[in-house]
């Protein structure tokens, strides 16, 4: 492990958060390595991410070819063509980027909200706790997806990032409760008491003593939030409540549905391609979280 001769820097909050994030990724990867399925899933996921981000740079937007719509798979179009004769494979390869970005941003924001307020709620207690958990309960009782659909249609989201923020705004309460209960238990630990006796301050206790012990846990919730966000945004695209611009698995599904691809014999792979892409991404992420869960078992961790 790389170490400098210098003592740790006096914690600048941003630096602390950054260190925490790096640590979270590191411990997540470490946790995943305990389980073969988790390791494979991680690598598949990384490959998908790389493809999704590289494809839009190297593959041009497939041009329409109205003479060749709903074509069956062939050598030129391995997955056939769509309603306007564009190549389906190119769309699938290019269509992951936005889906993943929206999911990641949504997950990041909701994890950020839940950690900040969940930890505050547990650590401060009293009326702060009452207000925050009360608010979380209110958001939790609202049927999320219908509200999301209504809001998305009403706000006419022009940018996928807004979509991500909207998903995040409704996704944080579950994680907040989980974070809160974790912090409640961690703050009773002897080392937290020792830190209090040393008068190290609330920021130190939260960011250096408590949260680093939740890294793997947070990483797990981050991935789970991403899967949730993927389902939600694909649902919104499918229903047409989100901007239908560019290549995107959700938009592909929407167009396939509304332009009647199901009536064309050769369009089986046109419909299946985005579904499979989404399913594989979800499967790899769920497998990753399951391994993360396993890694929480301290006995397993010790064996490593």
């Amino acid at each position, binding site marked *: 492990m790389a170490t400098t001769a210098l003592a740790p820097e006096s914690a600048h909050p941003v630096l602390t958060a950054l260190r925490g994030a790096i640590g979270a990724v590191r411990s997540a990867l470490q946790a995943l390595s305990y389980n073969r399925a988790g390791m494979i899933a991680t690598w598949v996921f990384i490959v998908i991410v790389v493809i999704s981000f590289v494809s839009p740079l190297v593959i041009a937007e497939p041009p329409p070819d109205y003479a060749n719509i709903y074509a069956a798979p062939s050598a030129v179009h391995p997955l056939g063509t769509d309603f306007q004769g564009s190549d389906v494979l190119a769309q699938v390869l290019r269509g992951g980027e936005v889906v993943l970005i929206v999911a990641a941003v949504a997950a990041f924001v909701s994890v950020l909200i839940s950690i900040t307020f969940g930890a505050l709620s547990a650590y401060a207690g009293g009326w702060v706790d009452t207000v925050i958990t009360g608010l979380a309960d209110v958001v939790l009782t609202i049927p999320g997806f219908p509200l999301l659909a209504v809001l998305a249609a009403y706000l006419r989201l022009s940018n996928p990032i807004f979509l991500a923020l909207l998903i995040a705004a409704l996704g944080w309460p579950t994680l907040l409760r989980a974070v809160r209960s974790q912090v409640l238990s961690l703050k009773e*630990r002897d080392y937290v*008491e020792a830190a*209090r006796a*040393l*008068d*190290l301050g609330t920021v130190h206790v939260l960011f250096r003593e408590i949260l680093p012990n939740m890294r793997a846990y947070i990483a797990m919730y981050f991935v789970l939030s991403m899967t949730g966000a993927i389902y939600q945004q694909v649902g919104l695209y499918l229903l047409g409540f989100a901007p239908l611009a560019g290549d995107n698995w959700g938009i592909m599904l929407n167009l396939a549905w509304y332009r009647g691809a199901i009536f064309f014999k050769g369009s089986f792979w046109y419909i299946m391609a985005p579904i499979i892409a989404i399913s594989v991404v979800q499967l790899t992420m769920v497998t990753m979280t399951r391994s993360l869960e396993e890694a929480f078992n301290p006995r397993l961790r010790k064996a490593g």
Partner: protein
Amino acid sequence: MPALIEVRQASQSFRTRRGVINALQDVSVSLEGGEVLCLVGESGSGKTTLGKMIAGLRRPTGGQVLFEGQDIWTASHEVFARYRRAVQIVHQDPYASLNPVQRVRDILAAPLERHGITKGRATLERMREILTQVDVTPPDDYLDKYPHQLSGGQRQRISIARALTLGPRVIVADEAVSMVDTSIRVSLLNTLLRLREDLNVAFLFITHDLGIAKYFGWSGNTAVMYLGRVVERAPTRALIAHPHHPYARALLSAIPEPDPELTRKKAKLLLRSLEIPSLLDLPRGCTFHPRCPLFETGLCDDQRPELTTLPDGREVACHVAVRDLLPRASGVA
């Protein structure tokens, strides 16, 4: 001159679903600079609660904790902050008292830098010095270790080192050696004894093991606690030689000794009951009366014995023992 720390008539109660638990009632103890005070008692005696209260981690629900004469909970923030740093705690469980994600250097540097005691290079020097003081040598081999890379005894030493970072005047050692192996325990105790001499640190030494209290507190005082009260306080050696309170006598006679002939011959003080009363429903009068061999009807189950100072300075809270030791005193109605 006021005592370094004085706990005056302190009580601590907790509200639970089943009722109010009086963990500590009207406890008064004081601690001078460099003194050792051992707190001895069984589970439920309140010794840990008193330790946390003295460490400033728990506010008493009644009574006061005075630091050089000032009530730490009503005095200015500065007084409290000064107190906080002057009193440090060492916990029992070496596996829970160090943060698993921090290296030794993180653990020690945080308090040093946070309070501006040292910076940068000087911090490193200071950490080396402290580790050497607690016999973790050579220090450079340990600075980058995580707790799980250390043995139980070494972890306790790191806990002690952490407590030393702020130059404390009092260390509350809460069963600090009871979870380490027999072969290592004595060296840990010897380290603590040496720190007391070298640094003139006072110790509140909490233990259930009278043998350990005897060894560590030989030159200090010991207070025996039972169900939230101090029932006897005396210089350790006097208490071990002649305990006055029947509970202290029962404890001493009950302890198995690592010496077959001695332990099998030891005269046992028989109690009237083996069951400890619940803190939720304490007996009237003296809380020890349902178990006490000296029990007198109408006295012990009616009036609570106060902690009475004897001519030799020892304190006992027992009607019968005090009457026998102070024949002329009219303290007993």
